[in-house]
């Protein structure tokens, strides 16, 4: 991929005011401001008002935030999201790293394997959810396979524990390929000499992995952890299609809950305050990433 340095700009034409560059940026800038910047500011304003979308807004200070902080459903949805993230992120990390390490070796059918693992990342979350719903369902193939082994059928989508497990399996299935590709890029950037030198010194494969691969993979690792973490906190369509957020509210994660409060209960102010809280959490992770990644020059 072509990249250049930021200083390569022409200096000759900067004397007189030029309209042209502004015109070139304008369409993008307009759309961007109207649909990203303005809503961001509005969301912040909503969060300090009582607003149902129909009647005029009424300023109520931090009442919405007080409401959010004492709202058990909110914290429970957030807690479930966090738990889901805490399981999914390490799982995706380990599995995609393992697959990437195997697939950068000299292996036959490398392209075939890569394509297979990558392919689910291109399928929309709705269809991923649907696919697994078909498999996990009461009449699904998984229960049939279990019955072949003489096991009882499992209510994959209607028991709290298994519903969560199903959501996790579907997530890992749909995201592994994406992170595998990122890891492959990171692994390929590690000079082969390092491994040769370690090999000559009699280091084992495991030892090379701990002392060479992992440390040099630090920037890639941060990238993968942060993207998958942020993804986890925003996830919603997959659960929506797979479990509908159920059973009960068992797999209703934070974005779905905010959507319900905002669009179904019409409490735009409260929902906006929740969004601000979620935004702060996501920002903290992003800032953390930048901080930590500094150590290992991305």
């Amino acid at each position, binding site marked *: 991929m072509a990249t250049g340095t930021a200083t390569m700009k022409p200096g000759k034409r900067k004397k007189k005011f030029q309209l042209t560059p502004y015109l070139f940026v304008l369409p993008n800038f307009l759309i961007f401001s*109207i649909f*990203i910047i303005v809503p961001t500011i509005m969301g912040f304003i909503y969060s300090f008002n009582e607003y149902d979308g129909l009647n005029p807004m009424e300023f109520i200070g931090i009442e919405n935030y007080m409401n959010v902080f004492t709202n058990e459903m909110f914290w429970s949805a957030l807690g479930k999201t966090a738990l889901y993230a805490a399981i999914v992120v390490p799982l995706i990390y380990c599995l995609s790293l393992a697959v990437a390490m195997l697939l950068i070796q000299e292996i036959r059918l490398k392209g075939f394997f890569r394509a297979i693992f990558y392919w*689910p990342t291109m*399928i*929309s979350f709705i269809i991923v959810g649907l*696919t697994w719903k078909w498999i996990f369902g009461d*009449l699904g193939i998984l229960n049939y396979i279990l019955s072949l082994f003489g096991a009882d059928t499992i209510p994959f989508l209607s028991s709290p524990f298994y519903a969560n497990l199903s959501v996790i399996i579907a997530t890992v299935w749909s995201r592994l390929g994406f992170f595998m590709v990122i890891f492959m890029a990171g692994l390929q950037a590690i000079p082969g000499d390092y491994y040769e030198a370690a090999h000559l010194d009699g280091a084992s494969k495991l030892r090379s992995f701990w002392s060479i691969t992992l440390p040099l993979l630090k920037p890639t690792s941060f990238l993968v952890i942060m993207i998958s973490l942020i993804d986890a906190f925003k996830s919603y369509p997959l659960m929506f299609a797979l479990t509908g957020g159920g059973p009960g509210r068992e797999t209703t994660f934070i974005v779905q809950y905010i959507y319900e409060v*905002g669009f179904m209960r019409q409490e735009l102010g409260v929902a906006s305050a929740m969004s601000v809280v979620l935004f702060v959490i996501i920002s903290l992770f992003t800032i953390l990433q930048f901080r930590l990644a500094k150590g290992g020059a991305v």
Partner: protein
Amino acid sequence: MEMKSSAKWIVYVFLFALSLLWIFPVIWVLLSSLKTTPDLYSFPPKFWPEPLTFEHYFNAFEKGNFGVYFLNSAIVTVSSTVLLLLINSMAGFALAKYRFKGDTVLLVGFISTLMIPLEVIMIPIFTVISFLGLYNNLLSIIIPPAATPTGVFLMRQYLLTVPDELLEAARMDGASEWKIYWSIILPIAKPILAVLAIFSFMWRWDDFLWPLIGISDPSLYTIQLALSNFIGEYNVDWGSLLAMSIITMVPVLVVFMMFQRYFVKGMVTSGMKG
């Protein structure tokens, strides 16, 4: 690196097992979609569709209105992608090849909004869309997502490598700035435009949140919205649903096959699903 042959065997077995696991769900959906309705719901499930039928595919189009949803998705995906390529390349060109007041602010502004997840501003976005009269209009899912920070940034990075002399020479020959953009910059930018086109295609085709915010009229549903709506129904018609899922995967699969190389490269450089 060379491996011992025993180690190699373990690796192959592991990879084959895992890839079987990865490919199985889609195959199962495909096989199921070709079964007759009674077979579809029979337990124990039959593996092979016997007899094989395309009735669910016909049903999806005839009773399920799938043609309409497919067309809506196609309109949205194509027009949003064209718009994205145009405006992102224009902005990227300006930010790479001109020096003007506020250029750095703009660039930093664009990039920093990558941090704002759509999910946390969906409520005010709905207000904006309604205010502009775009609610229940396909334009509400075509225009807003076209101005991507990722696109602008990738375009700019790519166009920084274009030598200024080329543009100066064109200016000497009396070319207008628009002409320079249109007949010099765009042809040079073909590879990065291809990458962006693929991304945009995937993003829009798979998108759920924008349609969810902007559309409520069933005649304007995109595929993803229609599918999600069917799932919520009491009597889920799994046959049609599975058939629709399979058809919906096809365009993405075709794009994937055609541009595999770009994909992997593009994923590595921009690394976003958005």
